[in-house]
């Protein structure tokens, strides 16, 4: 039986989401850890007024990206623990469906964690992160992060001390993404128009496209036995 590419991707994503609904491991981990991170940073930096408001975007993205490495590690470790990755590799579908399916799953979980985190950071730092245009920044940024993150979690999967390795591999590559997300969020949270954040949004789109291409070209080599 031949399965279309998109249906295969969705099947992998649905499997991840079903596990997530039953365990809540990834969402709980990412959300609670980033909430904790934001709280700790708030105490450590001790910012007031305008300074706190300007720091909110940076705190949101930095904590989400740090917490994301935990979730991504979990997502791939789960595959390996149950021998599930071997099963996926044997499936008669293109290998990139594994990457995209898992990236879609990570994207949805991380996106939900961000939506749940935004009100708390808004309150803690006195900023207004609950604006519709921010969904665009969040979507583009999380998409790129989930893609690169899933890719590199696969790379780290067979290495020793992968829990330590994934953040070391992923965060330098995510720096351009981080900068673009933070700047765009700052502009939009301050009430700026979408056009004012255009430069950063364009960077996000290009980053996503480039990483999509790189991931598609190299993923086969990353999951090879």
């Amino acid at each position, binding site marked *: 039986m*031949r*399965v279309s*590419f998109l249906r295969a991707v969705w099947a992998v994503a649905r499997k991840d989401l079903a596990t997530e609904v039953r365990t809540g491991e990834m969402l709980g981990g990412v959300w609670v850890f980033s909430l904790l991170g934001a709280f700790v940073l708030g105490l450590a930096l001790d910012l007031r007024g305008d300074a706190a408001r300007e720091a909110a975007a940076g705190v949101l993205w930095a904590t989400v990206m740090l917490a994301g490495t935990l979730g991504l590690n979990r997502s791939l470790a789960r595959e390996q623990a149950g021998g599930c990755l071997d099963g996926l590799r044997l499936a*008669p*579908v*293109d*290998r990139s469906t594994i990457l995209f399916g898992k990236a879609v799953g990570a994207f949805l979980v991380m996106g939900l964690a961000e939506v749940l985190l935004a009100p708390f950071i808004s309150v803690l730092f006195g900023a207004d992160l609950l604006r519709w245009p921010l969904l665009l920044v969040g979507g583009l940024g999380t998409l790129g992060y989930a893609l*690169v993150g899933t*890719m*590199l979690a696969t*790379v*780290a999967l*067979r*290495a*020793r*001390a*992968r829990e330590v*390795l994934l953040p*070391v*591999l992923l*965060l*330098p*590559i995510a*720096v*351009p993404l981080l*900068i*673009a997300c933070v700047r765009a969020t700052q502009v939009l949270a301050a009430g700026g128009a979408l056009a004012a954040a255009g*430069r950063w949004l*364009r*960077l996000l789109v*290009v*980053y996503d*496209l*480039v*990483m*999509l*291409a*790189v991931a*598609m*070209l*190299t993923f086969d*080599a*990353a999951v*090879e036995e």
Partner: protein
Amino acid sequence: MHVEGGKVKAGCTGFLLAIVGAGVMLAALAMVFLVAPREATMGDVQRIFYFHVAFAWVGFLAFLVTGVSGALYLVWRAQGLDWLGSSSAEVGLVFISAALLAGSLWARLTWGTYWTREPRLTISALQWLVYAAYLMLRRAVDDPQRRARLGAVYGITDELHQYFVPSRSAEGLDALADALGSFLGAWLYARVARLAAGAVSR
């Protein structure tokens, strides 16, 4: 006999390279300290440039070699390409460290601070982290072929992400976006065509 001959030849080449390298380095040092004139505004501090810029060039170029040899490795699977890529990363780490050190000394003497949010300093520091990550990944994988494969994947990913550093001009970014867009388009088309043709599994 053949192997021994090769060894002798390699030994000779290495010795010659060392002699030539030492000579050229001494000449360069003499030029830097004795021949080059004293810069008008910065004074002798400017002589750091002769080291710093060269360190930085090698530091960035070495990772380009790692990225390209990684890509070629994934195509040809030749062990030599992996050796080239990993040695290049080790050389690059040394040079980017030297570039950071020299750059930061220069910044202290010129701007009055060791570190500032200057784009070139930032990308050099990022490059250092990328080298560290690449070498850490290699050390954490035991199987040589898997190490080569994963190293190559990471090398390629890194090399491409370097072009996003925000200090790059908007025109450069646009040109890059166009080039990558067309590349991606062509590649996606080929992929979709192949999927549509029914070559789904491998």
